[in-house]
């Protein structure tokens, strides 16, 4: 499977995801944001980081960069798109995903391992997970507080477009297990065609037992499945 990781000024998880993809046997290429031609890819990743120093709004400037037109076109042609953390913020700024990510409710940057529940395991991104499986996974963000309008929330619920929800170790989804104030504890969502996934947690940080755990591995093996 061929993947492309888009690199913006201020991306800082681009090499982490590249290492994870390589480990999982993807044929990966790094693509600088000023490129106007995207290499043929089955998967495009918008990595985490602080593109353009989070100027204006997180992801707002990256969402207007030269390569983004190609990403949008590829997405509309069914290419798989994964946006992690800042990548998720960029996806909402481009309009590929609806909703937005507000500042964390308690105004603090949060970097810790939390739990998320796999809400929908019938997608290209999650088919190797069990339904309602609880993953221990790292978050590291200042603007991860998912917010959207009532009509979109209804669309997410009715079409099973919620990928992950924040929960506790036992899988309880409530205010105590919501680290950043996200609406309905939402940690990741799909578009209607389910070829685009935006998520705040970092699966690329969970592919090696030596440094963390392997709870992120199945996301990549799902894509290869």
């Amino acid at each position: 499977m061929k993947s492309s990781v888009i690199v913006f000024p201020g991306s800082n998880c681009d090499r982490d995801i590249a290492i994870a993809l390589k480990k999982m046997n993807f044929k990966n290429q790094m693509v600088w944001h000023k490129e106007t031609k995207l290499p043929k890819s089955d998967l495009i990743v918008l990595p985490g980081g602080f593109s353009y120093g989070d100027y204006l709004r997180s992801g707002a400037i990256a969402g207007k960069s030269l390569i983004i037109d190609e990403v949008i076109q590829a997405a509309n042609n069914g290419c798989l798109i994964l946006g992690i953390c800042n990548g998720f913020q960029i996806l909402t700024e481009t309009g590929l995903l609806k909703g937005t990510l507000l500042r964390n409710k308690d105004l603090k940057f949060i970097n810790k391992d939390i739990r998320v529940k796999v809400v929908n395991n019938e997608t290209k991104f999650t088919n190797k997970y069990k339904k309602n499986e609880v993953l221990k996974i790292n978050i590291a963000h200042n603007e991860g507080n998912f917010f959207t309008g009532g009509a979109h929330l209804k669309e997410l619920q009715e079409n099973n477009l919620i990928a992950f929800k924040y929960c506790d170790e036992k899988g309880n989804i409530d205010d105590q297990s919501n680290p950043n104030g996200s609406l309905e504890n939402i940690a990741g969502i799909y578009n209607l065609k389910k070829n685009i996934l935006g998520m705040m947690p970092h699966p690329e940080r969970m592919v090696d037992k030596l440094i963390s755990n392997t709870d992120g591995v199945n996301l990549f093996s799902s894509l290869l499945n």
Partner: protein
Amino acid sequence: MKFSVTVTLKKDVLDPQGKVVQNTLMNIGLNLRNIRQGKYFEIEIDEKDQAKARENVDQMCRKLLVNLIIEDYKIDKL
């Protein structure tokens, strides 16, 4: 021609920064009922026709400056 754009969070959107500012003001003895934090831009453009100029600024707001899901904006001629 010069315009100002004021961007504010919509009424229903939580403004935690505004809340902290409000609490701090109250802590130093300055009472107020409510405060909302926003952003302010000054934009100069070369267009002479005011209606056209305003339309250009409006486009800038809708395309980049404002996240229409959570923010409202107001354009004023300076």
